[in-house]
Protein backbone atom coordinates (compact mmCIF):
# COMPACT_ATOMS: atom_id res chain seq x y z
CA UNK A 1 0.00 0.00 0.00
CA UNK A 2 2.90 2.33 0.67
CA UNK A 3 3.78 2.26 -3.01
CA UNK A 4 0.69 4.36 -3.59
CA UNK A 5 2.31 7.20 -1.75
CA UNK A 6 5.93 6.76 -2.66
CA UNK A 7 5.89 8.25 -6.15
CA UNK A 8 4.27 11.47 -4.99
CA UNK A 9 6.63 11.72 -2.04
CA UNK A 10 9.86 11.07 -3.86
CA UNK A 11 8.85 13.22 -6.81
CA UNK A 12 11.89 15.24 -7.82
CA UNK A 13 11.47 18.16 -5.47
CA UNK A 14 14.88 19.78 -5.35
CA UNK A 15 16.13 19.77 -1.77
CA UNK A 16 16.75 23.21 -0.40
CA UNK A 17 19.28 24.11 2.25
CA UNK A 18 18.49 26.91 4.67
CA UNK A 19 20.92 29.30 6.32
CA UNK A 20 20.30 31.60 9.25
CA UNK A 21 22.81 34.37 9.76
CA UNK A 22 23.22 36.83 12.60
CA UNK A 23 19.91 35.85 14.13
CA UNK A 24 18.85 38.02 17.03
CA UNK A 25 15.76 37.63 19.14
CA UNK A 26 14.59 39.32 22.31
CA UNK A 27 11.70 37.84 24.21
CA UNK A 28 10.24 39.48 27.30
CA UNK A 29 13.32 41.68 27.69
CA UNK A 30 15.68 38.69 27.57
CA UNK A 31 18.01 38.30 24.62
CA UNK A 32 17.49 34.67 23.66
CA UNK A 33 20.15 34.69 20.99
CA UNK A 34 22.34 37.23 19.25
CA UNK A 35 24.51 36.79 16.20
CA UNK A 36 23.44 33.18 15.86
CA UNK A 37 24.46 31.30 12.71
CA UNK A 38 22.92 28.01 11.79
CA UNK A 39 22.49 25.93 8.64
CA UNK A 40 20.12 23.18 7.57
CA UNK A 41 21.65 20.92 4.96
CA UNK A 42 19.35 20.38 2.00
CA UNK A 43 17.54 17.04 1.90
CA UNK A 44 18.87 16.06 5.32
CA UNK A 45 17.38 15.83 8.79
CA UNK A 46 18.96 18.22 11.28
CA UNK A 47 18.14 17.72 14.95
CA UNK A 48 18.35 20.45 17.52
CA UNK A 49 18.69 19.47 21.18
CA UNK A 50 18.81 21.71 24.19
CA UNK A 51 17.33 22.56 27.58
CA UNK A 52 13.83 24.03 27.85
CA UNK A 53 13.55 27.76 27.35
CA UNK A 54 16.82 28.06 25.44
CA UNK A 55 15.03 29.29 22.33
CA UNK A 56 14.76 26.16 20.16
CA UNK A 57 11.07 26.65 19.49
CA UNK A 58 11.58 30.35 18.88
CA UNK A 59 14.27 29.62 16.31
CA UNK A 60 11.92 27.20 14.62
CA UNK A 61 9.10 29.72 14.61
CA UNK A 62 11.50 32.23 13.12
CA UNK A 63 12.18 29.92 10.18
CA UNK A 64 8.47 29.12 9.89
CA UNK A 65 7.72 32.81 9.55
CA UNK A 66 5.64 32.83 12.73
CA UNK A 67 7.96 35.20 14.59
CA UNK A 68 9.23 38.49 13.19
CA UNK A 69 13.01 38.46 12.88
CA UNK A 70 14.93 41.33 14.46
CA UNK A 71 17.62 42.94 12.35
CA UNK A 72 20.27 41.94 11.44
CA UNK A 73 18.74 38.44 11.18
CA UNK A 74 18.99 36.92 7.74
CA UNK A 75 17.02 33.90 6.60
CA UNK A 76 18.30 32.48 3.33
CA UNK A 77 17.08 29.60 1.21
CA UNK A 78 20.13 28.32 -0.64
CA UNK A 79 18.41 28.26 -4.01
CA UNK A 80 17.77 31.98 -3.69
CA UNK A 81 13.97 31.68 -3.55
CA UNK A 82 11.71 32.74 -0.72
CA UNK A 83 11.07 30.49 2.29
CA UNK A 84 7.46 31.51 2.47
CA UNK A 85 5.08 28.85 1.18
CA UNK A 86 7.77 26.18 1.14
CA UNK A 87 7.73 25.30 4.84
CA UNK A 88 5.52 22.78 6.60
CA UNK A 89 5.24 22.79 10.39
CA UNK A 90 4.39 20.09 12.86
CA UNK A 91 4.05 20.83 16.55
CA UNK A 92 4.01 18.96 19.83
CA UNK A 93 0.23 19.30 19.96
CA UNK A 94 -1.39 17.64 16.99
CA UNK A 95 -3.19 20.87 15.96
CA UNK A 96 -6.08 18.91 14.55
CA UNK A 97 -9.48 20.55 14.35
CA UNK A 98 -11.65 18.60 16.83
CA UNK A 99 -14.77 18.93 14.68
CA UNK A 100 -13.23 17.37 11.56
CA UNK A 101 -12.55 13.72 10.77
CA UNK A 102 -9.03 12.45 10.01
CA UNK A 103 -9.38 12.80 6.23
CA UNK A 104 -10.80 16.31 6.43
CA UNK A 105 -8.03 17.31 8.81
CA UNK A 106 -5.44 16.10 6.31
CA UNK A 107 -7.24 18.03 3.56
CA UNK A 108 -7.37 21.21 5.63
CA UNK A 109 -4.15 22.71 4.26
CA UNK A 110 -5.17 22.62 0.57
CA UNK A 111 -8.65 23.86 1.52
CA UNK A 112 -7.22 26.83 3.40
CA UNK A 113 -5.02 27.73 0.47
CA UNK A 114 -8.11 27.68 -1.72
CA UNK A 115 -6.93 24.78 -3.87
CA UNK A 116 -9.49 22.71 -5.72
CA UNK A 117 -10.12 19.44 -3.87
CA UNK A 118 -10.38 16.96 -6.74
CA UNK A 119 -10.40 13.20 -6.62
CA UNK A 120 -6.61 13.10 -7.04
CA UNK A 121 -6.06 15.26 -3.97
CA UNK A 122 -8.45 13.17 -1.89
CA UNK A 123 -6.75 9.99 -3.08
CA UNK A 124 -3.40 11.36 -2.05
CA UNK A 125 -4.72 12.23 1.41
CA UNK A 126 -6.19 8.74 1.74
CA UNK A 127 -2.87 7.24 0.62
CA UNK A 128 -0.98 9.24 3.24
CA UNK A 129 -3.37 8.17 6.00
CA UNK A 130 -2.90 4.64 4.74
CA UNK A 131 0.86 5.10 4.94
CA UNK A 132 0.64 6.12 8.60
CA UNK A 133 -1.58 3.10 9.28
CA UNK A 134 -4.89 4.93 9.60
CA UNK A 135 -6.44 3.97 6.27
CA UNK A 136 -9.44 2.53 8.10
CA UNK A 137 -10.08 5.55 10.33
CA UNK A 138 -10.74 8.22 7.70
CA UNK A 139 -13.90 9.55 9.34
CA UNK A 140 -12.67 9.33 12.94
CA UNK A 141 -12.63 12.61 14.83
CA UNK A 142 -9.61 13.40 17.04
CA UNK A 143 -11.57 12.59 20.20
CA UNK A 144 -12.01 9.03 18.95
CA UNK A 145 -8.28 8.55 18.36
CA UNK A 146 -5.43 7.89 20.76
CA UNK A 147 -2.61 10.38 21.21
CA UNK A 148 -0.34 8.38 18.91
CA UNK A 149 -3.02 8.11 16.23
CA UNK A 150 -3.68 11.84 16.39
CA UNK A 151 -0.01 12.56 15.94
CA UNK A 152 0.02 10.18 12.95
CA UNK A 153 -2.84 12.15 11.40
CA UNK A 154 -0.78 15.30 12.03
CA UNK A 155 2.19 13.63 10.31
CA UNK A 156 0.01 12.74 7.33
CA UNK A 157 -1.19 16.32 7.19
CA UNK A 158 2.38 17.62 7.29
CA UNK A 159 3.29 15.30 4.42
CA UNK A 160 0.17 16.38 2.53
CA UNK A 161 1.65 19.87 2.35
CA UNK A 162 4.43 18.39 0.23
CA UNK A 163 6.84 21.19 1.12
CA UNK A 164 10.58 20.80 0.65
CA UNK A 165 11.26 22.09 4.17
CA UNK A 166 9.63 20.51 7.21
CA UNK A 167 9.95 21.93 10.71
CA UNK A 168 9.03 19.71 13.64
CA UNK A 169 8.78 20.90 17.21
CA UNK A 170 8.99 17.96 19.63
CA UNK A 171 6.39 16.11 17.58
CA UNK A 172 6.61 12.86 19.53
CA UNK A 173 7.36 14.05 23.05
CA UNK A 174 3.83 13.52 24.37
CA UNK A 175 3.76 9.86 23.34
CA UNK A 176 4.66 6.68 25.18
CA UNK A 177 8.05 5.09 24.48
CA UNK A 178 6.91 2.36 22.08
CA UNK A 179 4.58 4.59 20.06
CA UNK A 180 7.38 7.13 19.87
CA UNK A 181 9.85 4.60 18.45
CA UNK A 182 7.33 3.52 15.80
CA UNK A 183 6.49 7.06 14.81
CA UNK A 184 10.16 8.07 14.58
CA UNK A 185 10.70 5.26 12.14
CA UNK A 186 7.62 6.17 10.14
CA UNK A 187 8.59 9.85 10.04
CA UNK A 188 12.19 9.14 9.01
CA UNK A 189 10.97 6.91 6.19
CA UNK A 190 8.27 9.26 4.91
CA UNK A 191 10.31 12.44 5.27
CA UNK A 192 13.40 11.10 3.47
CA UNK A 193 14.72 13.59 0.93
CA UNK A 194 13.21 16.64 2.56
CA UNK A 195 15.07 19.29 4.48
CA UNK A 196 13.96 18.64 8.05
CA UNK A 197 14.60 20.51 11.26
CA UNK A 198 13.54 18.50 14.28
CA UNK A 199 13.58 20.13 17.69
CA UNK A 200 13.61 17.59 20.49
CA UNK A 201 14.76 17.04 24.06
CA UNK A 202 15.29 13.33 23.53
CA UNK A 203 18.91 12.50 22.57
CA UNK A 204 17.96 9.00 21.42
CA UNK A 205 15.33 10.41 19.08
CA UNK A 206 17.86 12.78 17.57
CA UNK A 207 20.36 9.95 17.13
CA UNK A 208 17.81 7.68 15.49
CA UNK A 209 16.52 10.03 12.82
CA UNK A 210 19.04 12.89 12.52
CA UNK A 211 21.74 13.17 9.88
CA UNK A 212 23.25 15.99 11.87
CA UNK A 213 22.70 16.77 15.51
CA UNK A 214 23.35 20.09 17.22
CA UNK A 215 23.12 21.13 20.85
CA UNK A 216 21.79 24.58 21.60
CA UNK A 217 22.68 26.06 24.99
CA UNK A 218 23.59 29.19 26.90
CA UNK A 219 22.19 32.67 27.18
CA UNK A 220 22.30 34.19 24.69
CA UNK A 221 22.14 30.75 23.12
CA UNK A 222 24.78 29.27 20.88
CA UNK A 223 24.62 26.21 18.68
CA UNK A 224 27.43 23.72 19.00
CA UNK A 225 29.20 21.80 16.20
CA UNK A 226 27.34 19.01 14.44
CA UNK A 227 27.48 15.37 15.44
CA UNK A 228 26.95 13.09 12.46
CA UNK A 229 26.20 9.52 13.53
CA UNK A 230 27.11 6.68 11.15
CA UNK A 231 24.49 4.88 9.09
CA UNK A 232 21.25 6.03 7.54
CA UNK A 233 18.21 6.91 9.56
CA UNK A 234 16.07 5.45 10.99
CA UNK A 235 18.82 3.78 13.01
CA UNK A 236 17.86 0.91 15.30
CA UNK A 237 17.45 2.04 18.90
CA UNK A 238 19.57 -0.84 20.28
CA UNK A 239 22.70 -0.06 18.21
CA UNK A 240 25.62 0.06 20.72
CA UNK A 241 27.30 2.88 18.78
CA UNK A 242 24.09 4.88 19.15
CA UNK A 243 24.05 4.33 22.89
CA UNK A 244 27.65 5.52 23.21
CA UNK A 245 26.72 8.64 21.24
CA UNK A 246 23.73 9.14 23.52
CA UNK A 247 26.03 9.25 26.54
CA UNK A 248 28.17 11.85 24.79
CA UNK A 249 25.11 13.96 23.92
CA UNK A 250 23.80 13.76 27.47
CA UNK A 251 27.19 14.99 28.71
CA UNK A 252 27.03 17.95 26.32
CA UNK A 253 23.48 18.74 27.37
CA UNK A 254 24.30 18.61 31.06
CA UNK A 255 27.34 20.85 30.87
Amino acid at each position, binding site marked *: MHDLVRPTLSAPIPSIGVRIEGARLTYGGVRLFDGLDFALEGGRCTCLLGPSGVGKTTLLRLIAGLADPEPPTKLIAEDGGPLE*GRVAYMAQ*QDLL*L*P*WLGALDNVLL*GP*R*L*RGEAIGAAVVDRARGLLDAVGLGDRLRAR*PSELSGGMRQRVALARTLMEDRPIVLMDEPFSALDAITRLRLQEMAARLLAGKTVLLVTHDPLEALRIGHRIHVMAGQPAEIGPAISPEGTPPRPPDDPALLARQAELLRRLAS
Partner: protein
Amino acid sequence: MRPLIRNEWFVRVAAPLLVGALVLAVWQLACQTYEVPAYLFPTPTDIAAKLASDLPGLLGALWSTLKVTFMAFAIAVIAGTALAFLFTQSRIIEFSLLPYAVILQVTPIAAVAPLIIILVKDTTAALTICAAVIAIFPIISNTTIGLKSVDPSLANYFRMNKAGRLQTLVRLRIPSALPFFLAGLRISSGLALIGAVVAEFVAGTGGRSAGLAYEILQSSFQLDIPRMFAALFLITATGVILFLAMAGLSNLLLGHWHESALKVEQ
Protein backbone atom coordinates in the same frame (compact mmCIF):
# COMPACT_ATOMS: atom_id res chain seq x y z
CA MET B 1 -28.35 -8.42 38.35
CA ARG B 2 -26.74 -5.04 38.59
CA PRO B 3 -27.87 -2.89 41.50
CA LEU B 4 -30.51 -0.33 40.48
CA ILE B 5 -28.33 2.58 41.53
CA ARG B 6 -25.75 1.73 38.82
CA ASN B 7 -28.38 1.65 36.09
CA GLU B 8 -27.99 4.78 33.91
CA TRP B 9 -31.68 4.90 32.98
CA PHE B 10 -32.74 4.62 36.61
CA VAL B 11 -30.40 7.38 37.78
CA ARG B 12 -31.26 9.78 34.98
CA VAL B 13 -35.01 9.25 34.47
CA ALA B 14 -36.66 7.11 37.10
CA ALA B 15 -35.01 8.56 40.20
CA PRO B 16 -36.02 12.21 39.60
CA LEU B 17 -39.54 11.09 38.58
CA LEU B 18 -39.79 9.07 41.77
CA VAL B 19 -38.85 12.10 43.87
CA GLY B 20 -41.47 14.17 42.05
CA ALA B 21 -44.17 11.56 42.63
CA LEU B 22 -43.22 11.34 46.31
CA VAL B 23 -43.46 15.11 46.81
CA LEU B 24 -46.85 15.20 45.06
CA ALA B 25 -48.14 12.32 47.18
CA VAL B 26 -47.02 13.94 50.45
CA TRP B 27 -48.53 17.24 49.30
CA GLN B 28 -51.85 15.58 48.44
CA LEU B 29 -51.97 13.60 51.68
CA ALA B 30 -51.00 16.52 53.88
CA CYS B 31 -53.62 18.81 52.35
CA GLN B 32 -56.31 16.15 52.75
CA THR B 33 -55.36 15.13 56.28
CA TYR B 34 -55.26 18.67 57.61
CA GLU B 35 -58.21 19.72 55.44
CA VAL B 36 -56.43 22.73 54.01
CA PRO B 37 -58.95 24.75 51.97
CA ALA B 38 -58.27 24.99 48.23
CA TYR B 39 -58.19 28.84 48.37
CA LEU B 40 -55.20 28.63 50.71
CA PHE B 41 -53.25 25.76 49.28
CA PRO B 42 -54.86 23.48 46.67
CA THR B 43 -54.02 19.79 46.31
CA PRO B 44 -52.33 18.53 43.13
CA THR B 45 -55.64 16.97 42.04
CA ASP B 46 -57.44 20.33 42.49
CA ILE B 47 -54.79 21.94 40.27
CA ALA B 48 -55.02 19.20 37.65
CA ALA B 49 -58.82 19.50 37.56
CA LYS B 50 -58.54 23.28 37.19
CA LEU B 51 -55.96 22.89 34.45
CA ALA B 52 -58.31 20.59 32.56
CA SER B 53 -61.43 22.76 32.96
CA ASP B 54 -59.73 26.11 32.24
CA LEU B 55 -57.47 24.78 29.54
CA PRO B 56 -58.79 26.85 26.59
CA GLY B 57 -58.33 30.15 28.42
CA LEU B 58 -54.97 29.16 29.84
CA LEU B 59 -53.72 27.92 26.48
CA GLY B 60 -54.60 31.27 24.93
CA ALA B 61 -52.56 32.98 27.63
CA LEU B 62 -49.74 30.48 27.16
CA TRP B 63 -49.70 31.19 23.45
CA SER B 64 -49.27 34.92 24.02
CA THR B 65 -46.46 34.31 26.53
CA LEU B 66 -44.79 31.91 24.13
CA LYS B 67 -45.07 34.43 21.30
CA VAL B 68 -43.29 37.07 23.34
CA THR B 69 -40.70 34.58 24.59
CA PHE B 70 -39.82 33.26 21.14
CA MET B 71 -39.74 36.66 19.46
CA ALA B 72 -37.54 38.03 22.24
CA PHE B 73 -35.30 34.98 22.07
CA ALA B 74 -34.97 35.27 18.29
CA ILE B 75 -34.14 38.96 18.50
CA ALA B 76 -31.61 38.28 21.27
CA VAL B 77 -29.92 35.52 19.26
CA ILE B 78 -29.73 37.48 16.00
CA ALA B 79 -28.79 40.84 17.49
CA GLY B 80 -26.54 39.30 20.15
CA THR B 81 -24.58 37.23 17.66
CA ALA B 82 -24.26 40.18 15.27
CA LEU B 83 -22.96 42.38 18.10
CA ALA B 84 -20.50 39.70 19.20
CA PHE B 85 -19.11 39.52 15.66
CA LEU B 86 -18.80 43.29 15.59
CA PHE B 87 -17.00 43.24 18.95
CA THR B 88 -14.41 40.76 17.75
CA GLN B 89 -13.79 42.61 14.50
CA SER B 90 -12.66 45.82 16.12
CA ARG B 91 -11.44 46.74 19.58
CA ILE B 92 -12.74 50.29 19.29
CA ILE B 93 -16.29 49.03 18.66
CA GLU B 94 -15.99 46.57 21.53
CA PHE B 95 -14.77 49.12 24.03
CA SER B 96 -17.25 51.78 23.00
CA LEU B 97 -20.31 49.49 23.15
CA LEU B 98 -19.53 46.92 25.86
CA PRO B 99 -20.16 49.27 28.83
CA TYR B 100 -23.68 49.91 27.58
CA ALA B 101 -24.35 46.22 27.15
CA VAL B 102 -23.26 45.81 30.78
CA ILE B 103 -25.50 48.70 31.92
CA LEU B 104 -28.41 47.05 30.10
CA GLN B 105 -27.62 43.81 31.88
CA VAL B 106 -27.26 45.14 35.43
CA THR B 107 -30.36 47.34 35.42
CA PRO B 108 -33.23 45.23 36.84
CA ILE B 109 -35.76 44.61 34.09
CA ALA B 110 -38.68 45.10 36.49
CA ALA B 111 -37.49 48.68 37.01
CA VAL B 112 -37.21 49.47 33.31
CA ALA B 113 -40.28 47.58 32.13
CA PRO B 114 -42.86 50.26 33.17
CA LEU B 115 -40.94 52.82 31.14
CA ILE B 116 -40.82 50.63 28.04
CA ILE B 117 -44.49 49.74 28.42
CA ILE B 118 -45.44 53.42 28.62
CA LEU B 119 -43.23 54.37 25.69
CA VAL B 120 -44.20 51.54 23.34
CA LYS B 121 -47.86 51.55 22.41
CA ASP B 122 -48.24 47.98 21.21
CA THR B 123 -48.31 45.65 24.23
CA THR B 124 -46.73 42.64 22.51
CA ALA B 125 -43.92 44.80 21.12
CA ALA B 126 -43.29 46.36 24.54
CA LEU B 127 -43.17 42.95 26.24
CA THR B 128 -40.87 41.59 23.54
CA ILE B 129 -38.44 44.46 24.00
CA CYS B 130 -38.32 43.89 27.77
CA ALA B 131 -37.66 40.18 27.37
CA ALA B 132 -35.08 40.68 24.61
CA VAL B 133 -33.18 43.22 26.73
CA ILE B 134 -32.38 40.64 29.38
CA ALA B 135 -32.03 37.67 27.01
CA ILE B 136 -29.40 39.29 24.83
CA PHE B 137 -26.54 39.65 27.29
CA PRO B 138 -25.54 35.98 27.69
CA ILE B 139 -25.49 35.66 23.91
CA ILE B 140 -23.24 38.70 23.48
CA SER B 141 -20.81 37.81 26.23
CA ASN B 142 -20.59 34.09 25.50
CA THR B 143 -20.26 34.45 21.75
CA THR B 144 -17.64 37.18 22.14
CA ILE B 145 -15.56 35.03 24.47
CA GLY B 146 -16.03 32.06 22.14
CA LEU B 147 -14.92 33.94 19.05
CA LYS B 148 -11.85 35.11 20.94
CA SER B 149 -10.85 31.80 22.50
CA VAL B 150 -9.25 30.26 19.47
CA ASP B 151 -6.28 28.01 20.19
CA PRO B 152 -3.26 30.21 19.32
CA SER B 153 -1.36 27.31 17.77
CA LEU B 154 -4.32 26.56 15.50
CA ALA B 155 -4.46 30.22 14.57
CA ASN B 156 -0.74 29.96 13.70
CA TYR B 157 -1.42 26.97 11.50
CA PHE B 158 -4.06 28.96 9.66
CA ARG B 159 -1.65 31.86 9.30
CA MET B 160 1.05 29.63 7.87
CA ASN B 161 -1.39 28.43 5.25
CA LYS B 162 -2.26 31.99 4.34
CA ALA B 163 -5.90 31.49 5.31
CA GLY B 164 -7.86 34.69 4.75
CA ARG B 165 -10.04 36.44 7.30
CA LEU B 166 -13.19 34.77 6.02
CA GLN B 167 -11.60 31.31 5.90
CA THR B 168 -10.33 31.71 9.46
CA LEU B 169 -13.75 32.89 10.57
CA VAL B 170 -15.69 30.07 8.96
CA ARG B 171 -13.28 27.19 9.49
CA LEU B 172 -11.79 28.14 12.86
CA ARG B 173 -13.44 30.94 14.81
CA ILE B 174 -17.08 29.98 14.38
CA PRO B 175 -16.62 26.26 15.21
CA SER B 176 -14.43 27.23 18.20
CA ALA B 177 -17.13 29.62 19.40
CA LEU B 178 -19.96 27.14 18.98
CA PRO B 179 -19.77 25.52 22.46
CA PHE B 180 -19.73 28.96 24.10
CA PHE B 181 -22.58 30.19 21.90
CA LEU B 182 -24.70 27.16 22.74
CA ALA B 183 -24.11 27.64 26.47
CA GLY B 184 -25.25 31.24 25.99
CA LEU B 185 -28.31 30.00 24.13
CA ARG B 186 -29.28 27.80 27.05
CA ILE B 187 -29.12 30.68 29.54
CA SER B 188 -30.74 33.12 27.16
CA SER B 189 -33.76 30.92 26.41
CA GLY B 190 -34.58 30.77 30.12
CA LEU B 191 -34.06 34.49 30.50
CA ALA B 192 -36.36 35.25 27.56
CA LEU B 193 -39.17 33.41 29.35
CA ILE B 194 -38.42 35.12 32.66
CA GLY B 195 -38.28 38.48 30.89
CA ALA B 196 -41.60 37.85 29.19
CA VAL B 197 -43.30 36.87 32.45
CA VAL B 198 -41.84 39.80 34.41
CA ALA B 199 -42.90 42.24 31.70
CA GLU B 200 -46.38 40.72 31.66
CA PHE B 201 -46.64 41.25 35.42
CA VAL B 202 -45.65 44.89 35.08
CA ALA B 203 -48.03 45.39 32.17
CA GLY B 204 -50.74 43.50 34.06
CA THR B 205 -50.55 45.78 37.11
CA GLY B 206 -50.88 48.69 34.70
CA GLY B 207 -54.10 47.16 33.38
CA ARG B 208 -52.77 45.88 30.06
CA SER B 209 -53.62 42.22 29.83
CA ALA B 210 -51.42 39.59 28.26
CA GLY B 211 -50.08 36.15 28.90
CA LEU B 212 -49.79 33.71 31.77
CA ALA B 213 -48.46 36.24 34.25
CA TYR B 214 -51.63 38.27 33.80
CA GLU B 215 -53.64 35.09 34.42
CA ILE B 216 -51.75 34.57 37.69
CA LEU B 217 -52.36 38.17 38.69
CA GLN B 218 -56.08 37.97 37.85
CA SER B 219 -56.50 34.64 39.65
CA SER B 220 -54.87 36.05 42.78
CA PHE B 221 -57.30 38.99 42.77
CA GLN B 222 -60.17 36.50 42.50
CA LEU B 223 -58.64 34.14 45.08
CA ASP B 224 -58.73 31.41 42.45
CA ILE B 225 -55.59 29.77 43.83
CA PRO B 226 -55.84 26.48 41.87
CA ARG B 227 -55.88 28.52 38.65
CA MET B 228 -52.75 30.39 39.83
CA PHE B 229 -51.00 27.10 40.31
CA ALA B 230 -52.20 25.83 36.94
CA ALA B 231 -50.77 28.90 35.19
CA LEU B 232 -47.57 28.54 37.17
CA PHE B 233 -47.33 24.92 36.09
CA LEU B 234 -47.60 25.95 32.43
CA ILE B 235 -44.83 28.54 32.81
CA THR B 236 -42.53 26.02 34.50
CA ALA B 237 -43.29 23.36 31.87
CA THR B 238 -42.45 25.87 29.14
CA GLY B 239 -39.13 26.65 30.82
CA VAL B 240 -38.25 22.98 31.15
CA ILE B 241 -39.12 22.27 27.50
CA LEU B 242 -37.01 25.24 26.37
CA PHE B 243 -34.09 24.01 28.45
CA LEU B 244 -34.37 20.47 27.08
CA ALA B 245 -34.62 21.77 23.52
CA MET B 246 -31.44 23.80 23.94
CA ALA B 247 -29.63 20.88 25.59
CA GLY B 248 -30.74 18.68 22.69
CA LEU B 249 -29.52 21.19 20.12
CA SER B 250 -26.21 21.45 21.92
CA ASN B 251 -25.86 17.67 21.97
CA LEU B 252 -26.71 17.46 18.28
CA LEU B 253 -24.09 20.01 17.27
CA LEU B 254 -21.31 19.14 19.70
CA GLY B 255 -21.96 15.49 20.46
CA HIS B 256 -19.26 14.24 18.16
CA TRP B 257 -16.37 16.38 19.18
CA HIS B 258 -16.66 18.72 22.15
CA GLU B 259 -15.55 17.66 25.63
CA SER B 260 -18.75 19.00 27.18
CA ALA B 261 -20.94 16.63 25.17
CA LEU B 262 -18.74 13.54 24.82
CA LYS B 263 -19.57 10.54 26.95
CA VAL B 264 -16.80 10.01 29.46
CA GLU B 265 -15.41 6.51 29.60
CA GLN B 266 -15.64 5.07 33.07
